[in-house]
Structure formats: C-alpha cells, structure tokens
C-alpha cells in the first residue's frame, strides 16, 4: 500500500462513535465492495440451501405420488399436501428468517457479513433494535429481489418471442437506482439503511501484540546480542523524529522483515549522522525505538507532542 492511499482512504470511511462514557471510538464504514460481496455470499447460501431443500421435497413428493399410482382422478393425498405447505412456509421463513435471526444475534451480521468482516450498527451510536433490523430487511426485497426476479421472468418471456415492451427498461432502471443508491450518499447507506436508521461498519479484529520494550535491545539495560554493545542516543539524535515515524518503526519491528529493517537502519543512520554498520540492524532499531518512545512519552506527560518529523 502506498503512502497516499493509506492516508486518504481510511479518512473517507472513518467515523467517530461517542460512547455513553464520553469516549470517542473510531469506526470504519464497510466498503461497498465488501457489502456487495457479503450479499452475494448470503444469496448463494440461501439459494443453494433452498434448492437442496426443494430437491429433497421433490423426491419425497414423487414417492408419495407413486403411492397413489398417478391417478388423476384422485385428489392430492394428505401427505403430499403437507409437503407443499412445509415447502411454502420454509421458503418464507428462510427468506426472511435468515437475515433477521442472524442480524439480531450478538454478532449483528449474517454469515456473509461475518466472512467479509462487517456488521450492522445503529447509526449515530444508539442501540440496535429489532424493529430496525426488520425494517432494513423488508426493504431489501424491493431494492434487489423483486426487480431481479421480474427481470428474469421478462427475459424468459421475451426469449419465447413475447413482446414485453418498455417494462424491461423500467425494471432495469429500478434495479440500478437502488443498487447505485449507496454511491450517492456519504455513509454508503442503501434505502433499507435509511429507513431503518442503521449503517454497516467494519468489525475490528486485532490481537494484542507483544510488548516491545521487554525484548531485545529495547529494554532499559538492553545490549546488542551480536556485539554486546549498548546503543545510546543523545538528545540531538532523538529530537529528529516524531510519533508518526515512531509508529512506522514499531510496525516494521513487529513485521521484522530483514530487507525493510536494513533500509530503515541506513536511513536513520544517515539522518542522525552515524556511520551505518551491517549485521546488527535489529538491535540498533530496537534500541532506537525504545529510547525514542521513552523520550516522546515523557514529553507527552508534560503536554508536548510531536506529531511527525516536520513538526
């Protein structure tokens, strides 16, 4: 990821949530691509599930019909009728229940949303209510499914040579209007989100990383394992960089890729006027990180902050 993209992209989707404790929490809106992906995954799951279910019901139904010997005079036997009812009701329940039950659950996300790492939340930091979840899911029908199904039927009709007139264009326009809806507002809301007062956010999943200042040369008395020397930086050397550079260095140390470490080692040495050696980059960087952070945090406690090397 280049620097410009990293700096601009998260800003556009970043929102702040104020908890009742008065704490500002950063929140990232889910990207439109992630949401489309989640919807497609959910659709595939529902459709495959329903097809498999219908297939089983079909097999059962045929078994029942064989039992009465396909006699057209005879009415549907009770068992066949029961199967029809079950399939209609289960179809309805799967269609609405799949989204409702999962989004009302503690994760606030369907399986597709979980897979792409997003969840729904009440806009503006309120409590997510069942009514909101119901509203946003009822609206999904007219946004996507009704026009889509109607279009499929129309395509079927016109392939049989029937004249469908301008209806196809109307339906396509309808579908496009709602599909493109999230592109016309800042918060990527679809129509259902507007009516329900919800939005879709990314679900952060970070693990607690190891403490850096207890390992290697970053500790108080830490010395290089290779040379046994302790790197000590003076006032002048530590006053060059700011918080931004410190956190970049932290990321590099955690990733610990030798090439990157070497390059950064050379850059820092050039900047502070040291002669870059070779072979002991990690210890140097750990010591530099530990001492720079110690200095910046000490300043912080006195209310002095240095955002980056330019400030």
């Amino acid at each position, binding site marked *: 990821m280049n620097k410009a993209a990293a700096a601009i992209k998260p800003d556009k989707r970043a929102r702040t949530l104020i*908890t009742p404790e008065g704490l500002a929490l950063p929140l990232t809106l889910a990207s439109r691509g992630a949401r489309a992906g989640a919807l497609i995954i959910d659709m595939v799951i529902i459709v495959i599930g329903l097809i498999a279910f219908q297939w089983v019901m079909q097999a059962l139904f045929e078994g029942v019909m064989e039992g009465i010997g396909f006699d057209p005079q005879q009415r549907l036997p009770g068992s066949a009728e029961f199967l029809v*009812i079950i399939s209609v009701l289960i179809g309805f329940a799967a269609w609405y229940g799949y989204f409702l039950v999962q989004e009302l659950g503690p994760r606030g996300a369907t399986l597709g949303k979980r897979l792409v790492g997003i969840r729904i939340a009440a806009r503006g930091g309120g409590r997510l209510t069942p*009514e909101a979840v119901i509203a946003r899911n009822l609206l999904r029908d007219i946004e996507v499914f009704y026009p889509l199904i109607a279009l499929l039927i129309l395509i079927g009709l016109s392939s049989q040579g029937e004249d469908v007139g301008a209806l196809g264009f109307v339906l396509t326009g309808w579908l496009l209007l709602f599909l493109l809806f999230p592109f016309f507002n800042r918060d990527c809301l679809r129509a259902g989100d*507007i009516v329900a007062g919800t939005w879709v956010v*990314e679900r952060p999943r970070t693990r607690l990383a190891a403490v850096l200042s207890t390992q290697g040369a970053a500790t108080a008395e830490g010395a290089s394992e290779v040379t046994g020397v302790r790197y000590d930086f003076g006032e002048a050397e530590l006053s060059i960089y700011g918080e931004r550079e410190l956190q970049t260095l932290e990321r590099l140390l955690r990733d610990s890729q030798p090439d990157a470490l070497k390059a950064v080692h050379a850059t820092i040495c050039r900047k502070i006027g040291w002669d870059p050696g070779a072979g002991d980059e990690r210890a140097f960087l750990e010591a530099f990180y530990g001492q720079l952070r110690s200095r910046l945090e000490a300043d*912080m406690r006195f209310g002095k902050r240095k955002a980056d090397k330019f400030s």
Partner: protein
Amino acid sequence: MKAPVISSWFGRGQVAAPPDIKSAALRSDRFRLEREGDWRRLEDILARMERGGLRRIADADLIAMPALYRTAASSLSVARETSLDAATLGYLEALVQRAWFQVYGPRQGFIRWFRSFIFGGWSRAVRSLWLDICIALFVMVAGTVVGWLLVARDEAWYYRLFPAGVGEARVPGASREQLLATLATENSADGLSAFAAQLFGNNSAVCILAFALGFAFGIPSLLLLVHNMALLGALLWLFAGQGLVVELAAWLSVHGTTELFGILLSGAAGLHIGRTMAFPGKLPVLDAAAAAGRRSAVVMVGVVIMMIIAALLEAFPRQLVEGTSGRFVIGGTMLAFWLTYFILYRPRIAGDAAGAGAA
C-alpha cells in the same frame, strides 16, 4: 480492507504468558502489562458472547463484564494520553468497540421482542399510525368506487382488470346460478391447506411490496391500494347486477375483514414512511425516516401474522361454511377482534421493553 479474518477462526486461545512487569523499560508498557489480564478476560467473555448463548458464560463473568468494559474504556483514554504503542492502542480501540456492541447491543432476542410485540407493542404501533390509516382507508374506499364506476361505464374495463381465463364463470353476462356457484363451498377439506399456504405467500408478498414502496414518498403504495380495491369494486358491480351483493359480501367477509385490514395497515405503513420523508417536521430527514421506518416495521410484522390468519380463514371456513349469516358471523367476529385489539388493548409499558412508540 483487512484480510486476516479466517486466521481468527483457528488457533484461538494459545496466549503466551505476559512478561514480567518490572522488565518493561517504559512506563506506558508497565501500565499495559498491569491491566492486560483484565483485557484478555474481557476479550474471552466477548468471544463467548458473540458465539451465542449467554448460558455458557458463568454468572461471575457476566456480572464482571460491564466493569471490565469500563476498565478497558478508561484504559483506552489513559493510553491515548500516555502511550505511543500503536498496536496496544489499536487493540484497545477494537476491544472497547466490540464490548460496546455487546453492552449496548440489542437487549432482547427475537423471542422476548416478539412477546412484547404481541402484548402491546403491535397495537401501540398501529395506533401511532392512525392518520396514515385514515388516509389509506379513504384511498381504499375511493379505489372501490372507482372500480365500480369504471366497469359500470364500460364493461371492457372488467376484462382489463380481470384478464379472463378459460372456464372463468365470473364474467359480465354470467347468470345468477353461475355466480352463486362460485360462492359455493367445497365438499371436503382436501387440498385446502396447500391452497392456504399459497394464498399466504402471495398476500404477504403484496403487503410487503405495499410497505416497501412507501419509500418513494408513499405514492406507489397508494396506487397499489387503488388497484387492489378497484378489483373489488368491479367484482361488487358484477354481483350487484344479479342482486348478489349480500352473498358476495358474506363470502368475502370471512377472510376479507382480516386480509383487507392487513392490506390497509401495510399501505398505511408505507405511506407513513413516505409522508415522514416528505414532511419530516423538526427532525433531520434521515432521523425522521429512520423513526418512521421502525414504527412501520412493527406494523408489518403484524401484517404478516394477519396474512397467515387470513389465508387460513380463506382456505378453510370460507370454503366449508355455508350460508350468508354463518359467514358474516365469522367475518364480523374477526373484525371486532382486530378493532378491539388495536384500539382498546392498551397494556401499560413494562420496563423499557417498549419497542414501537419509543423510536
């Protein structure tokens, strides 16, 4: 985009023992090491809560959770002022956010919500839409009249409203006996329950459509109501020609009082959203739309239930009960029940379980 979601599914739980607190050179890292245990405990409880089932969590953990949440939140605000460890800050932000979703998340599951919905929430939501219901009722009556007048003026309209299938008896010019036969009962209940299931599917789809179309300022909802009721008006005209209005009304009333009531409510719910978006009042449009959407969603869940009842009534009593008076009794009872339930049933709001009116 962040990729490593799948990795979080595997390798849970192997947590390295935290290093000795005194070994940390930095004050901010000592701060972190002192509190890390609480954070990890909170994370563990959260993971179990998210996996579902509060039953699997020990009571002690459940009681400790709000306190742990506040600990983590205060750790975060302290760390923001004292620590430059980006990894710890990121972890804490994510942790507090996850905990926030659980602590301030949906307080009730579907079952509890549904109970409060049946016992008060539903009728409250319906009452809060009274103006829209009045408008929708007016539109429905107007639609019926329009249907009647259209067909009375020109019979060709009848065929436009009901594209006649082969063997359809209900066409202009049909004799009294033919029309009466369409109102007759079935001899047995065979096949009727499958019929009911299909009716339910169709009717609830129409209702959800009427609701969802309210998004376009309510106008398509009203058009849908007019169209549906024009069909009824045309049918009334047809039977009136042979002096069968009372019989038709009885036949329709069995399920019609429930079904038309449901259609009325769904049209009103759609109209409510549209009207609120057009005239949001003092609130911003988005907030007003959200509040109206939540109120209407409650009504819509009720409409689906009404459609189930209507389909059952349509399939069984209507096809099996003979006689005008018997049919009127069933239809009238249902209408009286719904009116009583929506207008007179006003239980006190228990706790904060109020769903409908509070939004």
